[in-house]
């Protein structure tokens, strides 16, 4: 039974859902957010490595909600394994705010060149690279909006790859910096590189009712207890709810979007906390469940006009799944090389390293012949998660280390050096062996077909990942780090997902139009990273947030006008008290 009309129903409450709910509530529209996970508040998050990272308490148990992952075998075939068997998981934070609660907040914009990869660099064999249907300039105002509304701290410095900006600097100054940043700056200067301050989705000063970062040192993978982290929950949804126009429903697992004979979506069907089937109807539906789950929801939402899944007449839903390509490097700065004060500064826990290199965002050094798209290198401190670090000390080539040798190894590991890590990001090229379908056999605990995910990598990504990781390793060596290692990685970092519903101009080769509206269903939008036909060479979340704000503007335009009564009620609610009083006084 239909409970109530909403202008808009948003499914998924993370980076893709938050800006839509926020913007619509601000525009005086009624919006409901359906989220499968619970509503945890700032006060529910603690620095508890066992809870967050070893028992994975913020994501569903794979027994209830597995995925099936296909990995490439040495002989070139594909081996499918349920996450129930493999122990890996494709979930990343199922609660109000989604994975943004647990992100580290490394924020990079995409650059103008990312919007035209095909025309700038030409095709790559075996990859389905295309140009975006919009330009950087179309997204720039929304990147700027994210800086203000979500809160991005940083400092603009001139460097060869700096993207154009409509404002001279960030609205929030950089977060406190760790002493390692100085070492990185000096090494980069000596090598002729341009180390730049890394923007963070973390508040360096209190704003918008949120507190400043407490520099607990335990940030990525941990929920934020202060509200300083720019999660969709604390930055957007809390404000959307406070404005009165937005209703958030936790524990609402959307099972399908029901469409009518004309092909339009008429309601979202979901299971509530008690397992009862409920329905919501709305003028417009917005899907933002993260790329894999978004594709899964559309694929299982068949209807009279959509026999192969909602908006899937072209067979494109689920294709061109993206992770993030790249590599990594690490090294140790031994404290014994530094005097007391320097050593003490290197031992500090809390401040952020906040340094990146984008000198090779386009690799034009002749190493690969013609110029190629490169990427971003981020520097970071070794994560403070002590259990996970300690468990690594039990490994050796000759078997487990235990007993007194283990104790001495632990003492050395935790006391001798500051470890620096490099994460290198390049494009994960879209191609035919990276996609999502519905598994024909495995069901979740609601009886719904689970996503089957093929995670093939294009070999080109390894070359670029290796190139970037080596550049990062050179910096570590210049810093005097010991035990420097670098590697390119072909395993997908599953917390960074995009693609599966690419946007484009041609309905035969894309799922969404340039506004992220489904070509085949005019009241269906997708606002998470699924729209991205190529992913850029940096973590995606700033772009997801920005695009979701852009999509929200398109939705506001598409909605039927507000009734006069709703409009005046909205004006009343949104007029600041002092202005309202002034108005009354002068009357």
């Amino acid at each position, binding site marked *: 039974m239909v409970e109530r009309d909403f202008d808009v129903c948003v499914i998924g409450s993370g980076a893709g859902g938050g800006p839509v709910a926020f913007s619509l509530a601000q525009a005086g529209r009624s919006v409901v957010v359906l989220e499968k996970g619970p509503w945890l508040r700032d006060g529910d998050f603690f620095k508890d490595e066992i809870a967050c990272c070893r028992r994975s308490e913020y994501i569903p148990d794979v027994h209830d909600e597995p995925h099936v992952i296909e990995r490439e075998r040495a002989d070139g075939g594909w081996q499918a394994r349920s996450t129930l068997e493999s*122990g890996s998981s494709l979930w990343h934070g199922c609660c109000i705010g989604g994975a943004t609660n647990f992100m580290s907040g490394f924020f990079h914009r995409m650059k103008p060149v990312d919007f035209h990869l095909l025309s700038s660099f030409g095709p790559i064999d075996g990859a389905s690279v295309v140009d975006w249907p919009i330009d950087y300039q179309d997204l720039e105002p929304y990147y700027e909006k994210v800086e203000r509304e979500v809160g991005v701290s940083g400092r603009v410095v001139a460097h060869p790859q700096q993207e154009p900006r409509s404002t001279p600097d960030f609205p929030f100054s950089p977060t406190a910096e760790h002493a390692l940043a100085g070492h990185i700056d000096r090494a980069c200067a000596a090598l002729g590189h341009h180390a730049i301050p890394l923007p963070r989705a973390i508040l360096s000063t209190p704003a918008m009712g949120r507190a400043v970062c407490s520099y607990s040192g335990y940030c990525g993978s941990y929920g934020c207890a202060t509200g300083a982290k720019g999660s969709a929950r604390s930055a957007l949804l809390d404000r959307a709810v406070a404005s009165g126009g937005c209703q958030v429903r936790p524990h609402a697992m959307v099972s399908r979007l029901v469409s009518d004979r004309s092909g339009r979506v008429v309601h979202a069907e979901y299971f509530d906390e008690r397992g009862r089937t409920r329905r919501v109807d709305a003028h417009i539906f917005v899907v933002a469940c993260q790329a894999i789950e978004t594709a899964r929801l559309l694929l299982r939402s068949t209807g009279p006009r959509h026999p192969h899944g909602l908006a899937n007449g072209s067979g494109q839903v689920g294709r061109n799944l993206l992770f993030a390509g790249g590599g990594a490097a690490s090294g140790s700065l031994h404290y014994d090389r530094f005097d007391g004060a320097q050593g003490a500064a290197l031992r500090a826990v809390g401040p952020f390293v906040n340094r990146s290199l984008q000198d090779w965002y386009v690799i034009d050094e002749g190493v690969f012949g013609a110029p190629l798209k490169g990427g971003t290198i981020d520097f970071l401190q070794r994560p403070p998660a002590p*259990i996970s670090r300690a468990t690594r000390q039990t490994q050796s080539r000759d078997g487990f280390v235990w007993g007194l040798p283990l104790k001495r190894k632990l003492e050395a590991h935790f006391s001798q050096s500051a470890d620096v890590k490099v994460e290198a990001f390049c494009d994960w090229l879209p191609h035919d062996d990276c996609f999502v379908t519905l598994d024909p056999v495995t069901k979740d605990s609601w009886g719904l077909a689970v996503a089957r995910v093929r995670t093939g990598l294009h070999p080109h990504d390894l070359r670029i990942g290796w190139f970037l990781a080596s550049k990062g390793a050179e910096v570590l060596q210049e810093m005097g780090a010991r035990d420097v290692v670098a590697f390119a990685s072909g395993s997908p970092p599953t917390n960074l997902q995009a693609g599966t519903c690419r946007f484009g101009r041609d309905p035969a080769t894309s799922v969404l139009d340039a506004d992220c509206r489904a070509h085949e269903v005019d009241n269906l939008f997708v606002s998470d990273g699924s729209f991205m036909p190529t992913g850029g060479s940096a973590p995606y979340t700033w772009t997801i947030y920005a695009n979701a704000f852009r999509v929200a503007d398109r939705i506001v335009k598409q909605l039927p006008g507000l009734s006069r009564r709703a409009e005046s009620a909205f004006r009343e609610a949104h007029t600041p008290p002092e202005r309202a009083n002034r108005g009354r006084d002068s009357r």
Partner: protein
Amino acid sequence: MGEEALQKPPAQSPERLDRRRFLTQLLSTVAAGATSRSALCAAAAALESCAHTGASAGLSAGQWQMLAAVQAHLLPSEPGIPGAREVNATGYLRLLMTDPRTGEEQRVWLRDGLVELAELSSERFASEFISLTKNEREVALRALERSPSGERWLAALLDFLLEALLGDPSHGGNPDGIGWRWLGITPGFPRPPIRRGASWSREISTSV
């Protein structure tokens, strides 16, 4: 974890054993028929003994003692430096195994490893593990490490030991942050509220 944006799937980092993987390994072991008849019989016997001993989680009091001895070997106590005993490793594991969210397969897994080690000790030394000398214990555990199931068991046991050493005390290990103090670790804040573990674990730690 920590300050990083890239996150590899846990399956790619063999050193990490989280609850899911732990369970999964058990399931695949059972599915592969690796649980020997003798192990199952011993498990059944252990279950039976629970009824009239201070046993818990399907392990007899004797098996908990044996487990404590294994943990003490893997992380021995030294003057002024904590070992398995001081970090309450056995109490921590007992809490985990009696947690309602812990599946029966995990308890069976824990027991299977003990049974395998007990068989190995009696074959090699005609003695119970708990009566072996330090060197004999090392030989027995290294022999256990060579069997695939033994290796998985030890890997997980080591992981749980380090959780007891460096996890938040609210989970029942690392009393008063003794492990953090030893290794100079600054815990994050806010710290989690006390779970049912902390006080209960003290009681348990003295009972094994």
